[in-house]
């Protein structure tokens, strides 16, 4: 089960955070800083899976952005690694501009893909379909 999903930039600022298990708000910042620290301190040749407390962290770097997913023990790390890439591809297809200014849309996409910690949909077309409908509605 996915516990949380974070998008962080290189300076350590959180760009997107979604928790699938309740965490206190002050603990969230603490968790984020620690997680980010451990991911940022790793170099390129090191492997992308870290063990942190009772989670496993799987992270992937895309230019200046780190995507970190925290899972519990039962998940297949490599599948989640693949999933992160899938997510980024979806974002790529939808957003022509920089992502960060349309945070709510990113949330929508993420909600389409992950529900309560489980992967729902991985097909790009199907994920983006509702969003495209939404866009058409708001334009009209």
């Amino acid at each position: 089960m996915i516990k949380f999903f974070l998008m962080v930039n290189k300076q350590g600022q959180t760009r997107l955070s979604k928790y699938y298990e309740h965490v206190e708000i002050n603990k969230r910042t603490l968790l984020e800083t620690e997680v980010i620290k451990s991911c940022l301190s790793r170099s390129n040749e090191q492997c992308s899976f870290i063990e942190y407390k009772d989670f496993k962290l799987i992270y992937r770097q895309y230019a200046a952005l780190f995507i970190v997913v925290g899972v519990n023990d039962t998940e297949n790390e490599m599948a989640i690694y693949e999933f992160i890439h899938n997510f980024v591809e979806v974002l790529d297809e939808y957003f022509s501009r920089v992502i960060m200014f349309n945070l709510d849309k990113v949330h929508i996409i993420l909600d389409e893909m992950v529900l309560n910690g489980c992967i729902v949909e991985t097909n790009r077309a199907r994920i983006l379909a509702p969003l495209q409908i939404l866009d058409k509605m708001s334009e009209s």
Partner: protein
Amino acid sequence: MVVPLLKLQDLIQEIRGAKTQAQEREVIQKECAHIRASFRDGDPLQRHRQLAKLLYVHMLGYPAHFGQMECLKLIASPRFTDKRVGYLGAMLLLDERHDAHLLITNSIKNDLSQGIQPVQGLALCTLSTMGSAEMCRDLATEVEKLLLQPSTYVRKKAILTAVHMIRKVPELSDIFLPPCAKLLHERHHGVLLCTITLIMELCERSPAALRHFRKMVPQLVQILRMLVTTGCSTEHSVSGVSDPFLQVQILRLLRILGRNHEESSETMNDLLAQVATNTDTSRNAGNAVLFETVLTIMDIHSAAGLRVLAVNILGRFLLNSDKNIRYVALMSLLRLVQSDHSAVQRHRPTVVECLRETDASLSRRALELSLALVNSSNVRAMIQELQAFLESCPFDLRADCASGILLAAERFAPTKRWHIDTILHVLTMAGTHLRDDAVANLTQLIGGAQELHAYSVRRLYSALAGDISQQPLVQVAAWCIGEYGDLLLEGNCEVEPLQVEGEEVLALLEKVLQSQMSLPTTRGYALTALMKLSTRLPGDNYRIRQVVSIYGSCMDVELQQRAVEYNTLFRKYDHMRAAILEKMPLVEQGGPQVDEEAKESKEAAASVPTEPQASKLLDLLDLLDDTSEDAQHPPALNPSPEGTLVHLLDLPCAPPPLGKPQEKGVLEKEGENVLFLLLCRVRLICPFPPVCPYSMPILVGKGFIQSCHSLLAPFRVFPLFQTSSPGQQGPASSPISSHISSHFPIGPQTLPPQALGISCSFYTKCSFPGTSSDWLSRGRHFSLKCQMPSHTTPI
């Protein structure tokens, strides 16, 4: 509203533009004030924008609870954009602990039944994230209806909401069990994916569900087979593998179903083999599927051939250049090594290669796996590799590596010399990271290998001459040099030719004594070693006497006491010096004693009943002081594993083995002096003061005994070593009490000529009132009593 409202994008830009934390906080606070004002009396059309901004601010960590009621209002609004933000807000801001969450139950219910898909989707999403138990119960029927709707978009969400509901309210699983069978027939991958997740959840919750779903194994196998064999449809394939996510989920479900169940496992065997061989491994997606397959094979009752296949796949992973895959492979191999040891052995060279990784998590895994793979046939090669690793590994791994090497060496050492070499090497490399009993083990090992005394003392001497900073090494070296100093000077050992002058040895020991890096314990060792050398080295002992007298005024109490005693030994008892400083008798026991010893010291540390027992000892000595007749006999606690404590101090535990010379105890004329000498002996022979803090029996040299033999006759002495019956600890076992018992047995004993000794307990490092000198004086009184042969007073 005078100030035009910022759009979310502008707000984000502004926040990012803030250069300092304080500036950012200012911007946010200002904005929050606006948002609050707007909520109170603002334009309902703009409300969703405000809430969106608030959510962003919340994500950055600022409090946003005043937005909760707004979420409710937005959810209730008929406009989709409002609902969207409202539901998102509900997901982020509300949760079970706030009472407000129940208020949205009604809204959700309405939305779910309205039949507008996106809205239903939203509602389901929120429900699945933050639905509490009450909400779930209320809305279960709604969700169930949605499970069977034709629209796949809603259905998959409904299924995952069902998963969440089952987690919250396990009783609901009955409702959601029947539809699963039908759902498995779907072609839509999204629905399938969710269904499988649901089935997994159900199976984990109840064994009845597990049995129910086992019937579906053939169907699942069929689905997976279709995925693997048919050409990948473009819509689901990820880098050439058709829907790896679905494959992984199915495999995981098969794992759960096949665990501990022969029949299902058999059905799966073929398929697993097929997946394992057909999957394209050039990309990560394929490897992910393969990894899951391997995990499944390991968990179910698979055929032996299949298991070997799994191990081989893992071996192949180890050779992959991608670090992630290697990490995953090492972890799985670690799990496998217990059950399929021989299969994993075949990949040993690759595992050893992985030790050289720069990545910390990889090298740690590789270390664990390598240690698990050491056995008697490959021990030399493996330990060599591990030693090479020890030299270069990061600090946090050193302790584990060092203790792992020592443990493996102990279990599988082919020869004693190799063993000693290995331990020496580890000590030089990573001495400071070792456990405390490593020193004890090594001294015991060296002491036991008589033929290697010369060799070991030379090696230790050279090591010490090179570096005096590693404390365990220094301690062992000092002890050895003290014991076998004469062998060091002989210079005719073929293997380690080394010309050493007596003066050099003394100089080295003095250096250790004076060095800042030496711990007090180490200094104690060094001083004792110097003292022993006074008999072993030729020539007069002027230098040694000088050193010893200097330390008579040392600040460290322990060291001072030793020095004073040694000094007195030089001055008053020079004729007995040789006898006292004799070589220690060799220890017979080996490894298992270590555990007992550890147990002993642990029990010693944990013994609360120390108090009453100790006070008994106090009483005992007091009584002795008062020459009272009703000296308490110490409780007859079992003699047994004092054998171990005794062992610590190099006393043979079993009845005299192999004709080693027995130590006999003798008393001098002046009881005072006897005790003094005995105390000296303690200093000299006890290399392990930190390990045995409470009491130290004394062993007196044979020469000593012979010179005073006649005096022994009228006194009560008692067997020094018991026939050890290990494990028979007395009920209130404390080292003191049981020690008393082993050395003060009840009843008079006559003096058999062979196996006897005198033992006297006293405390050197204990939490008792008074310093050692107190005990010394008590002891003196006590020994005076010994002159009077008394039937009841034990010695």
